[in-house]
């Protein structure tokens, strides 16, 4: 098998020390089966079926996160941009899965490569590579296709994060193109540094389910785009005053966050890459603890600082906790998970306020939630486990810097060529009419919020 396991050191941290066992997968190793049928009759088949089933269920849960992102972004933006937000999210999941099929999957998990730039197999590999070994435990604890669909659902996440940050002003075709390149090329490329067994993996970096590889990456891509794009019209008034632009539906935003919370059980739990009872149940526990701790911390901090319990901050707090625990969900203790969540929930409130102060306009708080808390989560593994803090720092900065610079370059290029921002007129009228000629809520009377 050329393909390396995604997280070869998954069992190699705190937990295995505590329980004194080595990886399940390690024992499966290289034996091959003559045919799939032979495999189905082998002793380990039932366990393989469980593991594979869990990967598929996890893929379904991660898929649901895309609905979560879509509704969260919709809820936290204005009604006049709703169709546009939903459309972008439809595009992202579509392109995410398709480009990953055509190129990304093979590029990201390339097995032997120089460790920095993976070019992937020829586009056709997915359709043709029907080697029996890929469907058995000689490959992994799940089939090649189970692997593909789970990873494909992950891939689109990075672009979704950017979507929220650039909402309400980005030109549709430019954004669509950006997504294709980001998800189709930059994400698998940098992902392979760690999950594909590249240079960061070789150095000993640890990022269980992607605090840096997915969230830090997405958050800093978002930051670059927002810098190139500028804030929404009317957000920052002359004289330093900030005029908040209110999200139009708190139920939609809340539905989004609950779905993301749910989906994260698949995101983190599935990253165990087997249904190992101990690990998956442990990861569920740390994930839930960090999420609610994030929510509680954001409640307390926003109440203390802003003087009112701000629902949108609590929602961001949940997500902050989830992003925070993503790097070390299997590697830190349960009390550490609570602390990681609490810190993330506090960080996110201050980060959002800070970005607003420096006029980085991020309607949904994506940069703070995914970027800043992604760094926090990655570093926390260095603080709360045996992992080296220094290596964690190098790893997270590598991802954030790469995403930032890549996006800065690409988005600047798009700005110079096709243009990335809708006209002021269109922005004030709303992108639904401007880009789509559609209304999201034609039956409802909308208030013009210029003071009214």
């Amino acid at each position, binding site marked *: 098998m050329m393909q390396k396991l995604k997280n070869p050191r998954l069992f190699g941290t705190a937990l295995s020390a505590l329980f004194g066992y080595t990886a399940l997968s390690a024992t499966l190793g290289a034996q091959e089966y003559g045919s799939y049928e032979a495999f189905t009759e082998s002793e380990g088949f039932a366990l393989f079926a469980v593991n594979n089933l869990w990967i598929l269920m996890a893929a379904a849960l991660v898929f649901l996160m895309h609905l979560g992102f879509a509704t969260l972004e919709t809820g936290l933006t204005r009604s006049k941009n709703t169709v546009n937000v939903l459309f972008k999210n439809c595009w992202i999941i579509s392109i995410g899965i398709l480009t990953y099929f055509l190129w990304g999957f093979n590029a990201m998990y390339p097995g032997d490569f120089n460790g920095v730039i993976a070019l992937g197999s020829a586009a056709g590999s997915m359709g043709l590579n029907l080697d029996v070994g890929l469907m058995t435990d000689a490959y992994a604890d799940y089939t090649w296709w189970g692997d593909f669909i789970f990873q494909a659902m992950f891939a689109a996440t990075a672009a979704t994060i950017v979507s929220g940050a650039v909402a309400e002003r980005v030109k549709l075709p430019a954004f669509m193109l950006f997504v294709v390149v980001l998800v189709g090329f930059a994400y698998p490329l940098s992902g392979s540094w760690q999950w594909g067994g590249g240079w960061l993996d070789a150095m000993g970096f640890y990022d269980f389910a992607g605090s840096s590889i997915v969230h830090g990456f997405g958050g800093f891509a978002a930051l670059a785009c927002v810098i190139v794009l500028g804030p929404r019209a009317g957000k920052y008034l002359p004289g330093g005053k*900030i*005029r*908040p632009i*209110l*999200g139009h539906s708190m139920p939609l935003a809340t539905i989004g966050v609950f779905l993301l919370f749910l989906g994260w059980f698949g995101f983190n739990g599935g990253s165990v890459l087997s249904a190992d009872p101990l690990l998956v149940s442990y990861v569920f526990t740390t994930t839930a603890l960090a999420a609610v701790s994030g929510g509680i911390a954001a409640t307390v901090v*926003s109440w203390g*600082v*802003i*003087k*009112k319990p*701000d629902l*949108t*901050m609590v929602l961001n707090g949940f997500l902050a906790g989830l992003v925070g625990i993503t790097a070390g969900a299997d590697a830190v203790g349960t009390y550490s998970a609570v602390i990681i969540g609490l810190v993330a929930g506090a960080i996110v*409130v201050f980060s*959002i*306020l800070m970005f*607003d102060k420096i006029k980085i306009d991020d309607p949904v*708080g994506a940069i703070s939630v995914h970027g800043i808390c992604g760094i926090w989560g990655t570093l926390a593994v260095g603080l709360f486990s045996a992992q080296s803090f220094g290596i964690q720092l190098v790893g997270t900065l590598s991802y954030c810097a790469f995403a930032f610079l890549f996006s800065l370059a690409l988005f600047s290029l798009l700005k110079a060529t096709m243009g990335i921002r809708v006209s002021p007129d269109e922005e004030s009228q709303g992108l639904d009419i401007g880009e789509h000629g559609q209304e999201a809520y034609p039956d409802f009377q909308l208030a013009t919020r210029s*003071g*009214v």
Partner: protein
Amino acid sequence: MKLIKAIIKPFKLEEVKEALSEIGVEGMTVSEVKGFGRQKGHTEIYRGSEYTVDFLPKVMVDVAVPDDLVGKTVEAIKNAAKTGKIGDGKIFVQPVEEVIRIRTDESGDEAV
């Protein structure tokens, strides 16, 4: 014939409607408006930034009445809508030159 426009607090509408019924005024047209005046709006916070809601919800009641009923009508609205607190609203009396009931072509005082 006069058109009386009363801008009142929304929760007073029910009482104004009843007060008008009592003096025999059985028709009115109501719209939801926003008022700006001495009564100040409130300051809210969204994700850490303050904003002011300047315009407060009010209800505007349009009632057309024959000239001789104007005094009684104004009185009825005033009493029903008063809370004594700032923001109770205003009543404007405007001339109307003609009134027509669409259904019957009636005009003038019979039309209301």
